[in-house]
């Protein structure tokens, strides 16, 4: 996904980067997110890389 038109606003860029990241897209449901490792399924650790922590949700 290209974001060629975006201006260089640090907050916007960081948010875009986070929203595009694997951790944000898939890592929010750790109990059901699995990674293939050598033929077996390994449960992934919970990854919650949100930039902000003041949200009530």
């Amino acid at each position, binding site marked *: *996904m290209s*974001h060629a*038109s*975006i*201006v260089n*606003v640090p*907050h*916007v*860029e960081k*948010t*875009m980067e986070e*929203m*595009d990241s694997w951790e*944000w*897209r*898939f890592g*929010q*449901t750790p*109990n*059901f997110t699995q990674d293939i490792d050598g033929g077996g399924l390994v449960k992934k650790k919970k990854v919650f890389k949100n930039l*902000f922590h*003041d*949200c*009530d*949700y």
Partner: protein
Amino acid sequence: MHVYRLTGTDPIVNLAAEDWVFRTVDTSKAAVLLLWRNRPTVVIGRNQNQWTECNMQALADRAIPFVRRYSGGGSVYHVRTRKHDRPKQHKQTKKQDLGNSVFTIISDRASFDRAANAQLVARALKRLEIDATVSPRHDVLVQGHKVSGAAFKLTSKGAYHHATMLISADKTSLRSLLKPASQGLIKSAGVASVPSPTMNLCEIAPHLTHASFCDALADEFIESYSGPIAMVLQKCVWREVINSLFFDRTRT
């Protein structure tokens, strides 16, 4: 108060810009309405499980991205307009004529009212001669069918209410992409979407477009959020972004 229209259709850019505006604006002094739409994308709620909400294989086959937003709520499919529903006068912008409009109402936490915002949208539709009601879940209904579903985000200072409006979306694609292949196979602790019968506004208002809906909503927003509200622009970067990303429809 200010009304901005995001002219791009990249879902990640739009969601990032929305989040930035939300965090930049002093919501105690300014209420903001953002109007935008996305190119074909599935947007899921912050606390949802994508495997139980979407058909990931179908998304991959059609190269349609899915995006997880910061707010809660259910899944949304931003679709292209059905071909036969596209107004002839917009033929030259056919590729940009997307059938699902999105709006965000940003206000301070103290005055944030989900029901009032949903009523505001219903009144905007009345301006377009469409009778709309609001459900207890703050969905906007027309003839008993959902045309707008909302999601919310609240912080200690501010809150926003963002929602979609089905104007002329391709509902066949919507059903197939939001019907997970794993249906019944996965038990998820994630927040499940609440399926509702939907309809496009173009079914009862054939000439309705994204632009006319935005105009009606902006007019209603300005009337509803009246008062001595002044936008506080923070630093020059704010102005730069407005100039490059937004079409400013400021009214006082």
